[in-house]
């Protein structure tokens, strides 16, 4: 008799879905970040996950990657047909799920090849085989269309290339499902384009991607499917064919936003602040970070400073704002007609200048402090009673900002560490509004912020200038610069190379100036 098992054909049933997350619920003390979320990703597609700040996107991905380990959430994860219970990120990487987080996770002081194979080094009898490591690293990068000197340190490259190195690192781990949490939020248009192209190429090689982004135009460009989260709930999953941005916005925020850049009309006053022949020399790295800057801002005016990442805009802002990085500066500053010198940020703040940093986690907020203490830290003297901080008043002030800026949190005593990126940005803004400045310098004010909140921030900016405040807005997002500025300066290679009025400015003109330089 023939043994029956010989005839047993092992059918591997490949489901259409590579990933199914079923009824995922995740609670933090005081917040339900995910509420019965269902999320399915088809094999080989690019699936975009979108939603307002704090809607739970990052949390969902952290559940998937094992960052929040099995047992700390409810629900089921099915990957490649099998239920998965990840305890660490390492577990999920073993089955081919690799995440690139909102914050880059490279080690700046290590070389490119060391970074790419960090944590899964190529070893020969326990000893790292560096030659093989280097060739392999170059091979992966080549797959992505890049040839780099892999022996250089990561810190020597711009954010754009660093992002590529992150992807190379993921590829070197045999990735099947690549998760990218806001990979383009810190990239300029050209680098973003390149990155998106790479994700599309990976798709042709059979790699599935989940992409989180607040930039709806790029979502529409690359997505096969779009899932929208709102307040921890799955709102909808739709195929990306011929849907318009407005439709997605409506799903995201629950209402229509007609004009993302709200109009304003008010008088612009006299010159408030002027910078002449400004230079800043970075003593540590021995180079000029600002080679020449001449510009001014009038009362009630919004001035945009456009340029590519690395043009020296943040350095310009720092060097003006009391020079905390200790550059050697020269040139003149005039504030309200008088020549001024700022020896430290506190001098600048006293004169009425505020600077909302682009890097809210790095140097904007104190992550271990709660919302209210972060809001008041730059202007504690306003709420002092004798030498004591008036905590009652602090609470009232913080509550006010929480309401007016719609900061999503369970209380103003929540640590900012646990806030979503967009809400951290709002806390940062609140902190600087509390110093009631005459001039507000905003550095990438809407990086990583959802459309609804963007619209809110633009409206707040309009209210502020209507009250007579002046705003300098540094931004890499051209539509935003064009939509909000009265005048635009273009910066490249450490120099302000041109000025355009709102009427004459176009995306093409600005890019042409910035790139040509």
């Amino acid at each position, binding site marked *: 008799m023939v043994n029956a098992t010989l005839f047993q054909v092992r059918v591997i049933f490949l489901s259409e879905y590579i990933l199914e997350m079923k009824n995922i619920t995740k609670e933090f*003390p005081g917040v339900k970040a995910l509420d019965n979320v269902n999320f399915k990703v088809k094999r080989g597609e690019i699936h975009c996950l979108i939603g307002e700040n704090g809607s739970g996107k990052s949390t969902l991905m952290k559940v998937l990657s094992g960052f929040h380990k099995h047992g700390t959430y409810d629900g089921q994860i099915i990957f490649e047909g099998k239920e998965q219970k990840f305890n660490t990120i390492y577990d999920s990487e073993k089955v081919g799920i690799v995440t690139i987080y909102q914050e880059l996770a490279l080690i700046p002081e290590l070389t490119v090849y060391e970074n790419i194979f960090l944590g899964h080094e190529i070893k020969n009898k326990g000893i790292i085989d560096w030659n093989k490591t280097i060739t392999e690293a170059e091979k992966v990068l080549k797959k992505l269309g890049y040839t780099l000197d892999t022996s250089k340190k990561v810190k020597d490259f711009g954010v754009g290339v660093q992002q590529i190195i992150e992807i190379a690192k993921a590829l070197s781990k045999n990735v099947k499902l690549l998760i990218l949490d806001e990979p383009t939020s810190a990239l300029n248009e050209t680098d973003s384009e390149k990155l998106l192209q790479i994700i599309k190429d990976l798709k042709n090689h059979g790699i599935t991607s989940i992409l989180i982004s607040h930039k709806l135009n790029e979502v529409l460009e690359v997505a096969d499917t779009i899932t929208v989260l709102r307040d921890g709930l799955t709102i909808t999953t739709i195929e990306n064919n011929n849907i318009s941005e407005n439709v997605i916005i409506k799903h995201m925020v629950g209402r229509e936003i007609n004009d993302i850049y709200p109009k304003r009309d008010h008088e612009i006053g006299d010159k408030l602040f002027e910078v002449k022949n400004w230079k800043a020399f970075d003593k540590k790295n021995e180079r000029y970070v600002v080679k020449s800057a001449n510009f001014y801002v009038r009362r009630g005016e919004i001035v945009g400073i456009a340029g590519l990442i690395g043009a020296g805009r943040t350095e310009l802002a720092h060097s003006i*704002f*009391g020079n*905390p990085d200790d550059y050697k500066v020269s040139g003149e500053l005039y504030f309200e007609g008088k020549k001024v010198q700022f020896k*430290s*940020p*506190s001098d*600048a*703040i*006293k004169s009425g200048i505020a*600077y909302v*940093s682009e890097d809210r986690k*790095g*140097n*904007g*907020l*104190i*992550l*271990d*402090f709660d919302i209210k*203490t972060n809001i008041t*830290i*730059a202007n*504690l*003297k306003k709420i*002092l009673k004798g*030498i*004591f*901080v008036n*905590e*009652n008043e602090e*609470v009232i002030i913080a*509550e006010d900002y929480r309401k007016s800026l719609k900061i999503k949190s369970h*209380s103003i*005593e929540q640590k900012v*560490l*646990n806030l979503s990126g967009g809400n951290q940005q709002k806390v940062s803004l609140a*902190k600087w509004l509390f110093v009631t400045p005459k001039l507000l310098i905003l550095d990438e004010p809407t990086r990583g912020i959802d459309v609804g909140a963007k619209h809110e921030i633009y409206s707040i900016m309009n209210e502020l200038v209507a009250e007579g405040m002046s705003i300098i807005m540094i931004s890499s997002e051209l539509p935003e610069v064009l939509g909000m500025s009265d005048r635009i300066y273009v910066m490249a290679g450490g120099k302000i190379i041109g000025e355009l009025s709102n009427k004459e400015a176009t995306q093409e003109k600005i890019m042409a100036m910035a790139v040509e330089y």
Partner: protein
Amino acid sequence: MFGELKTLLKKHIREYGMYIALVIIMLIFSFLTDGLFLSARNISNLFNQMGYIAVLAVGMTLVIVIRHIDLSVGFGSGFLGAIAAILMMQHNMPVLPTILIVFALGIIFGLINGFFISFIGLPSFVMTLAGMLIFRGGLLVATQKTGTIIISNDTFNEIGNGYIPDFFHNENIHVTTLLIGIIIILFYIYFEIKRRNNKIKYNFEVLSIPIFILKILLISSIVGYLFWILASYNGLSWTFVIVLIVTFIYHIMTTKTALGRHIYAVGGNPEAAKLSGISLNKITLFVFGSMGLLTALSGILYASRFQSATPTAGTLFELDAIAAAYVGGVSAAGGVGKVTNSIVGALVMASLINGMNLIGVGISFQYIIRGAVLIAAVVFDIKTRSKAS
């Protein structure tokens, strides 16, 4: 109610953990010594023993909060104690000016540390290691001619050995101590209620009434019992009073003033603090200056307690202070740590030493056990921290 108690314990396990450890240590030693450990005499003794480390631990907490370390406080304390002895014994200086001069010197030494660390950018480890060597040398020079300097000034020696006077002359009980205890408890209850009402006003989370009462009862009875014990012996010692005052001032300074906020901001994120208009240099100077002042105080407490200045005074004080701060939950990553917890940390370590002495554990084993307890405390802290976030 028990559910709430459980979540409360879970949420604050880090803070309560240390108190629980303290209680366990006390109970164990009390059991092993047939109650001798918790006797009035020993408890009173325990507080006097920990005084000079406790004040160092308070200053060290702030140093660690701003991500630095101060290794010079041990021999600094020994050296400053010797200066006090020399001024009084060899130059016939009265007590008060002596103390003021020693305080001033302490502040100056601290500011010098702070200056090199902030303005010149020396790593604090290196700067204060050098300070430790210099102070050690200074101490040896100071005591070279005479060897140990005996201090025969009664007023000065009272600081480390004396007790506050009783105004009521009761035979069995120190009434003033008892009254102070009662006043402290009443203040405590008043502020807890006020704080709770305030929180309710702003719709913040508060403990439910029964748990709240339970907490107040628990703490009040511990404080009450402590003062009762002390009152039935000699009353409050001057050392205890000094530690209490220092702790109170630093607690208020760190939690209620702008300066305190700024210190924690610098520790939490120096870059952000700088951009918020806070001067890192000023804060560093202040914290090291305050450390210097407390070092001087510690030197005075120690010299006074042993009525002498010895060539080895201050040995390893810095490590005891650092250990107390870590047992109390400060974080080397900066920005985290309470002075009150460091005091409890110092109490844990002091109880350990005192208890082991009572049951006759050899000095070598004492070091090993203290090392193990330090590791256990920090492991506990790290484990509970990652869970809380």
